[in-house]
C-alpha cells in the first residue's frame, strides 16, 4: 500500500546535494543536458575568443607604430622629420572635450526628461514622447552627422556661437572666430545621439525607486516637484550613473557624425568654438588612405588608444557602480 501518512513521504529536496561538480553532473545526466551544456559553454568561449582575437590583432598591427615612437605615441603620435602626422595627444584632447560637452548638455536634459516622463507626464503624453525619443536612437550616425552639418552648423555659426561669445562670463570658453564646425557643435550632435540612452535608462531607474520613498516624502509635506527632487532622483542615482557611463562610451567612440561637424583641424583647440579633431574622426578620415606599413600601423595605434580609453571609462564606471551598490546594500 502507498504511504498515506505525511511523515512517510520524503520532503522535497530544496537544496542540491553537493556542489558545482555534482550540479554539473546532474545537468549532464538529464536528457538534452549535454547538448545544452555544450551550447552554453561554446557560446561563451566563442564570444570571448572573438573579443580577445580582436584586441590581439589590433595590437599586432599597431605594434610597428608603438615600436617606432615608444610611449610618446600617446601624445605626439607618429612623428617624422618633415611632417608630424597623427598627433595623438591632440585627438585625445578633442575626444575628451567633445564628450564632456555632450555629457554636460545631455545629462540635465536627459534626466529631466526621464523624470518628467516617469513622474509628471500624463499617460497620453508619456508613451508617444518616449517612442519619439527612442526613434532618435534609430537614426543612423551619418544621417545625424549630415543633419548637423547642413542644418545645425549654419544655425550655430550665425546664432548660437555669437550668443555664447557675447556672454561675458563664458569668454574663457568661447572666443575666436565662429565658423560653424567646432567642438561645441560636435558636442551638441553627440548629445543628441546619446540622449535616448540616458532617457531610457534613467527612466527605468526612476520608476524602480520604491513607492515607499515617494509616499514618505509626500507624507512629510513635499510637493510633487520636491518629491522628485529629494526622494526619486537621489534614489535612482546609481541607475542614472550607469546610464551616463554607457552614454559616455557611445560618445567616445562616435566617428562619422563627429567627423562631419568637428572641422578636422589638427591643432590644439583654444576655445570651444575652434575646430578640432577626435580619435574617431581622425581614424575615419585617415584609414582609407593610410599606406600599408607605418602609416596604417599608426592609424591602428589610434584605434588601440581609443579602445583603451573606452575600456578605462567602462571599467572605471563599473567599479564605481559596484562600490556604490555595496555601500547601498551595507546601509541599513
Amino acid at each position, binding site marked *: 500500500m502507498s504511504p498515506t501518512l505525511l511523515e512517510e513521504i520524503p520532503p522535497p529536496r530544496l537544496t542540491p546535494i553537493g556542489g558545482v561538480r555534482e550540479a554539473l553532473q546532474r545537468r549532464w545526466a538529464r536528457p538534452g543536458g549535454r547538448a545544452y551544456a555544450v551550447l552554453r559553454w561554446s557560446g561563451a568561449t566563442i564570444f570571448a575568443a572573438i573579443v580577445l582575437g580582436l584586441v590581439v590583432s589590433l595590437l599586432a598591427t599597431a605594434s610597428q607604430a608603438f615600436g617606432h615612437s615608444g610611449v610618446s605615441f600617446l601624445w605626439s603620435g607618429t612623428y617624422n622629420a*618633415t*611632417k*608630424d602626422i597623427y598627433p595623438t595627444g591632440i585627438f585625445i584632447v578633442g575626444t575628451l572635450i567633445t564628450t564632456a560637452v555632450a555629457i554636460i548638455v545631455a545629462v540635465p536634459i536627459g534626466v529631466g526628461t526621464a523624470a518628467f516622463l516617469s513622474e509628471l507626464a500624463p499617460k497620453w503624453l508619456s508613451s508617444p514622447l518616449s517612442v519619439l525619443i527612442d526613434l532618435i536612437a534609430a537614426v543612423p550616425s551619418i544621417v545625424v552627422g*549630415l543633419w548637423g*552639418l*547642413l542644418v545645425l*552648423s*549654419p544655425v550655430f*555659426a550665425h546664432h548660437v556661437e555669437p550668443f555664447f561669445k557675447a556672454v561675458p562670463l563664458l569668454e574663457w570658453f568661447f572666443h575666436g*572666430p565662429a*565658423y*560653424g*564646425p567646432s567642438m561645441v557643435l560636435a558636442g551638441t550632435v553627440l548629445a543628441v545621439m546619446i540622449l535616448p540612452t540616458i532617457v531610457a535608462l534613467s527612466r527605468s531607474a526612476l520608476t524602480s525607486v520604491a513607492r515607499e520613498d515617494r509616499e514618505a516624502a509626500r507624507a512629510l509635506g513635499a510637493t510633487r516637484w520636491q518629491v522628485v527632487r529629494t526622494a526619486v532622483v537621489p534614489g535612482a542615482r546609481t541607475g542614472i550613473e550607469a546610464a551616463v557611463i554607457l552614454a559616455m562610451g557611445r560618445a567616445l567612440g562616435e566617428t562619422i557624425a563627429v*567627423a*562631419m561637424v568637428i*572641422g*578636422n*583641424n*589638427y*591643432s590644439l583647440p583654444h576655445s570651444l568654438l575652434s*575646430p578640432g*579633431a577626435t580619435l574617431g*574622426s581622425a581614424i575615419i*578620415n*585617415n584609414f*582609407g*588612405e593610410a599606406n600599408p606599413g607605418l602609416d596604417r600601423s599608426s592609424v591602428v595605434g589610434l584605434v588601440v588608444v581609443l579602445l583603451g580609453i573606452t575600456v578605462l571609462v567602462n571599467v572605471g564606471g563599473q567599479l564605481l557602480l559596484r562600490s556604490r551598490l555595496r555601500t547601498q546594500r551595507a546601509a541599513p
Partner: protein
Amino acid sequence: MHRGPVSGRAQDRRHHLGGVRVPRGSTLIVSLVAVAVVAGACGSSTPSAAKKKATKTETSTSTTATTAPSTAGAATSTTTATTATTAVPAAHTAPTSPPASSTACSTTGGALSATCDTQSPSFKLSGAGANSIQPFFTRVFYYYSQADKAVSVNYSPAGSSVGVTDIQQNTVNFGDSEIPIPTPASGTGGNILQVPVDLGGVALSYNLPGVSGGLKLDGPTLAGIFLGTIKTWNDSAIAALNPGVNLPSTAIVPVHRADSSGPGYDLDQYLIDTGGSAWTGSAAGTTPSTKWPLPKVGVGEQLNTGVAGFIQQTPGAIGYVEYAYSLQAGFTNAALKNSAGSYVKPSQTSIAAAGAASSGLSASNFNIVNGAGAGTYPLANFSWTLIYQKQSNTTLGVVLGKLFDWVTTTGQQQAAALGYSPLPANVAALAHSTLLTLENSAGKPLFS
C-alpha cells in the same frame, strides 16, 4: 478603437496594431502577394528584353546633349542646397553608335569587336573610386544601361584610395583614381590596366559676397592662404593681384578635404610648382600627397559635397572642389595664374586646352598640372579607371571592355553637360589601345 479578442485563449490575445485585428487567413494572402510583387520586380530585367532592342539609327545627338543645362538630372548625391536653377534634363535620346549588345557585334565608331556571345545573363558590375568623377559616371552608366539593359553598373564614390585598394584586392570589377597607381601596377589578379576616362578640373571656389567671380590668385598667394599667413581678404598680396576690386576685410577661412583626394593632390602639386619656398619648406614638402598636408590650418570636410556645403554656408571661405561640383552649386571661382603667366578661370575650354596640351600621356606620365599653353587652366587632371588585364571571366571581360570603350568615345558627349571636358583625340586613342590589351585567363586577347 480596440476590439476585444474573439476567444479568451492567451494565444489569441496578440498585440493588435491600431486596434484592428488581422484574421489569420489574410496574413498568408498578404505575404504571398508581397512575394509575388518582389519576384515580379526582380524578374523584369531579363535578357530577352535586351535582345528586343532594335539597333537605333545614328542621329546627331551631340547637339542635344550639349544644350542640356549644367545641372543634370543625374542622381548626384550632393545634398547641398544649391541655388543654381535645376532644369529638367534633356529628354534622353539614344547615344550614337549603340553599345553592342551581347549578340550584336558592331564595329562602327571605334567600338571594340569581339567573338559574338550567345545568350548572356545580365551583368551587374561594381566599381569604387574617386569622388570627383561620380556625376559623370552616374550619367554615363545610366545611359549605357538604358541602351543595353543587360548591363547595370554600381559605382561607389568613396575616394580614390578606396578604389585602388578595392581593385588591388579584386573585390570590385573596376576602380577609379585621380592619381594612377605607380607603374607597374598590379594586384592580386595580376597586372592592372589604367585607362583615362575623364578630363576634369579643380576649381578654387570662394564665398565672398560683393565680389564677383574671377578673383586673380597666383601660387604664392594661394600658398599663403592655405598656410594661414594671409588672414584677410583685403590683404595686400591679394589686393596687388586685383587692382580695382573692392575687397572686404572678412577673415579667410581655408577649407580642405579631410579625407584623401585627387583635387588636393593637384592643388598640392600646383603649389609645389608655383608656391615658392613658403610651401615647400612647410609640412607640405616637395612631393604632392593625396592627404592634405596642412590639417592644422582652417577646416576640413568630407568629400566634395562637404567642402561645397561649407563654402556655401560660410562667408569668407575658400576651398578646392571638382569643377563639376562648383558648376552645379553655382560657385564663384578664382582665376589662377598658369605657366604662361595669364590668369585663367576654370571652364570647359580652359580645361580642354590643358588636356590637349598633354603629350606623351601615360599612367606613369600623368601630370598635367601647370601645363604649357596660354589658355590652359593649371589645375586639370585625368581620371583613370583601373581594370585587370587578365579577366578570368571572359564574358565579363568583354562587357567591361565594351563599357569603357563606349564611355571613352560616345559617352564623352555627356561630359560637357556636367562640367567635364571631352577627352582629346590622342587620349581617347590611348584609352582604346589600352583596352585592346585585355586578355582572357589563357592570355588570348579578348578583342581584335
